[in-house]
């Protein structure tokens, strides 16, 4: 049942809440710093100099605007809706992650911080963070689960080439949530000089809103580009969701267009009816982790469960709090795609469009492949191609039983 709300774009409130979600659930040691980040972000957001600086790096370093591309062959193949890709995989470093990293490191510099830490799952956020640290000559430590280090070797090497220290995390389930725990532990011990660049729209306030605002450039460009290409806004938007930053970035500027259907695609792993998936909304319930209240995969006793996805970037048992709110209000529809469906979409896109997508947006494309054929030919669908698949070729080869 969809609620009647005047605007979906006003959140969060001053305490960082989107409905009951969000908040600031952190240890006291971090709290003064969290408040300082919030203050600095509030000031930067209203400062034209900051906006100019951001725009400069977006244009000349990241390569924005990213193209909006009409996927002609896939459109014909599906036989229904016109399918467009927002090509954020063409950004410098190969994914949308860099948008947020540029924004946060500019903020860290404004705050006079001299050391950067970050967590990473697939390694894309780690690479993007290491990249901006090289650009601004700041020492950088990346926490990465040992399981992810094994399956994302190229990105680990990239981070090292960029001068970052990659610290393997062997606590808990050795994946993204544990990397985030470890980054928080580092931050608690180094609050004075260190800025934590969180990679997604999660964590304590103001991170979910701040990361969303940096990523919203995706949706703002899409609006303009779609007007130019079609003379109107799209009918539907589709994006994959782990923590959900690429999706928030695409969705947010469109939330108040009631006629636009918005769909988030979670990772169903081996299936949402198994215990091997990463679909927090479909298979979880509200809880508190990593500084915010949101939907989490957890057992009956509130212990956090291990997520599973073939895509390391979606392998997280939570989701950004704003998504939890958009889910409960009914504004955004959340569905899921399995490992197998993502693998099929990965291959289809490579062969039909000459674009090797990352496994993350392959989940979004898997859903597009389910619905596009049933939509009218004048229906315009835009999917966020948020990352390229070079990093995933080893994982995909293994899944397909190919030795390279």
């Amino acid at each position, binding site marked *: 049942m969809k609620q009647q709300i005047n605007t979906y774009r006003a959140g969060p409130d001053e305490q960082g809440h989107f409905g009951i979600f969000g908040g600031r659930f952190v240890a006291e040691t971090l709290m003064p710093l969290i408040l300082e980040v919030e203050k600095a972000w509030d000031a930067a957001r209203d400062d034209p100099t900051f906006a100019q600086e951001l725009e400069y790096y977006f244009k000349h370093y990241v390569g924005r605007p990213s193209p909006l591309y009409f996927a002609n062959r896939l459109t014909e193949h599906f036989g229904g809706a016109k399918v467009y890709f927002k090509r954020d995989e063409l950004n410098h470093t190969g994914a949308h992650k860099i948008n947020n990293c540029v924004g946060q490191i500019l903020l860290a510099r404004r705050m006079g911080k001299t050391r950067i830490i970050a967590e990473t799952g697939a390694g894309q956020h780690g690479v993007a963070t290491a990249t901006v640290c090289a650009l601004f000559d700041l020492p950088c430590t990346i926490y990465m689960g040992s399981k992810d280090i094994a399956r994302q070797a190229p990105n680990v090497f990239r981070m090292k080439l960029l001068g970052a220290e990659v610290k393997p995390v062997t606590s808990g389930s050795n994946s993204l949530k544990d990397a985030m725990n470890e980054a928080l532990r580092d931050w608690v011990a180094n609050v004075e000089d260190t800025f934590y660049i969180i990679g997604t729209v999660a964590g304590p306030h103001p991170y979910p809103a701040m990361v969303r605002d940096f990523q919203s450039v995706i949706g703002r460009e899409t609006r303009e580009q779609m007007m130019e290409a079609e003379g109107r806004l799209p009918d539907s938007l589709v994006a994959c969701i782990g923590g959900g930053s690429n999706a928030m970035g695409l969705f947010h500027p469109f939330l108040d267009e009631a006629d636009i259907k918005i769909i988030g695609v979670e990772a169903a792993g081996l299936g949402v009816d198994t215990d091997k998936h990463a679909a927090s909304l479909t298979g979880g319930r509200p809880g508190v982790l990593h500084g915010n209240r949101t939907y989490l995969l957890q057992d009956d006793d509130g212990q*956090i469960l291990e997520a599973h996805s073939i895509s390391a970037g979606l392998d997280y048992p939570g989701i950004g709090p704003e998504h939890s709110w958009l889910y409960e209000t009914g504004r955004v529809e959340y569905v899921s795609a399995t490992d197998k469906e993502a693998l099929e979409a990965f291959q289809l896109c490579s062969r039909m469009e000459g674009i090797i997508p990352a496994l993350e947006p392959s989940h979004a494309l898997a859903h597009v492949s389910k619905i596009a054929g049933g939509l009218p030919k004048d229906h315009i669908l835009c999917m966020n191609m948020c990352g390229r698949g070079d990093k995933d070729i080893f994982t995909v080869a293994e899944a397909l039983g190919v030795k390279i």
Partner: protein
Amino acid sequence: MSAADSGRFSRRFAALKAAGRGGLITFITAGDPDYESSKQIVFGLPEAGADVIELGMPFSDPMADGPSVQAASLRALAAGMKLARVLEMVREFRARDDDTPIVLMGYYNPIYSYGVDRFLAEARESGVDGLIVVDLPPEEDQELCLPALKAGLNFIRLATPTTDDQRLPTVLSNTSGFVYYVSVMGITGTKSATEGAVKAAVERLRRHTDLPIGVGFGIKTPENVRAVASVANAAVVGSAIIDRIAGGLDGNGRPKPDLAAGVLGYVRELAAGVRGSGGK
């Protein structure tokens, strides 16, 4: 209107003052390495010299804790520990000791999942005196702190080196029982503060509160305990005790027969530290 608290903290800290010494607060994770072994240790703590018992509620993602406490949490969970069983252990303890204050320490999600009102009612009824919930700063007081005070449980807040004079009143506003000063910036069981830094911090806190002050993080030896307990009202030892539990396990992670005796022997050594503390 708040329910009256159990009074165990005020009685215990008054008794320490009368005895002219600082107290020893011991931390272990409930159910580490299993329910029975853990219970045996908890039952023996008062006799070994613990003045206040801090019991950890295990959590899968203890992000403010170091490797020792993380491992303890995982051992307890692997042995099937649940939040309800933590309360059960307190109930069993209370049947034999009605004086030693018990603080439950942990993270919010298991409590939130259990249901705040149900948890608070059962905790009070089990004989829990206070709560320390690491990821609930004053900004989130309406979640658990205020309901806990209403239910007659003390909410013990952590003050840290980053809590400056401007923020301290906020942190202290709904704190009761005692104040837990985290003496270092960092996670449990790693760095240690110097005696001078602890002394200065305790003096700063005393300018803001009349509550007893416990100091923890990085306190590992009877000498550390003596030094801290001579300036604060109590010293908290956790990771160092948990390391003794880890050391009392065999190659398969099962407790050796003398596990509890070994751990309690170590607590006795620590307690000897406060007995010579002079105290406040």
